[in-house]
């Protein structure tokens, strides 16, 4: 399988995230105005579709990456999963103990937090292995 070019990947992710932003701006406000439960569920879940596509693109890129890239992706994903898991467990206990009064909306932050932690971890993993700061690579 041929490697996925960085430019093509970045373009695809940017296009899909633009769709996500458009959905959140124009489609999401309709959720509160709809009374039919089925339509409401469909409207509520629609913005999840672009996120699923982005995750599929990330998986495809990792599968088709070369051996050094796969190593950096693995390190970054492991670190990101670890960081987010710690936050999730700590947050969960604080909510259960009623120390932190958070709603279910706090779950929204898991994916952005995972992406952020992954990006930072990838930068450091790449720097450690290649000796170069590659700010546009992940």
């Amino acid at each position, binding site marked *: 399988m*041929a*490697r996925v070019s960085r430019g093509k990947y970045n373009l695809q992710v940017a296009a899909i995230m633009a769709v996500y932003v458009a959905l959140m701006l124009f489609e999401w406000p309709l959720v509160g105005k709809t009374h039919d439960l089925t339509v409401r569920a469909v409207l509520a879940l629609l913005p999840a579709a672009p996120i699923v596509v982005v995750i599929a693109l990330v998986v495809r890129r990792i599968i088709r*990456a*070369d*051996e*050094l*890239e796969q190593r950096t992706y693995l390190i970054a994903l492991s670190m990101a999963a670890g960081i987010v898991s710690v936050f999730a467990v700590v947050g969960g206990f604080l909510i259960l103990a009623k120390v932190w009064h958070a709603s279910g909306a706090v779950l929204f932050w898991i994916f952005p937090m995972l992406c952020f932690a992954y990006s930072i971890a990838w930068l450091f993993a*790449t720097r450690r*292995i*290649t*000796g*170069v700061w*590659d700010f546009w*690579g992940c």
Partner: protein
Amino acid sequence: MRNRVRELREAHGWSQGVLAEHLDVSRQTVNAIENGKYDPSLPLAFKLARLFRQRIESMFEPDEDRR
């Protein structure tokens, strides 16, 4: 590991990007191998050796300082 990848690549007049295309890896990976930051897997090392028509042991040798 020390290697002669840079020397052989330059002898062919190739850029890192061209070598990366031949090997189907990223330019960053070629750069990391040349600078001794990353030791390639056996399949990739054999691919390099075949590409430059070299014996693998003439391209790679253990770095005594790092032992």
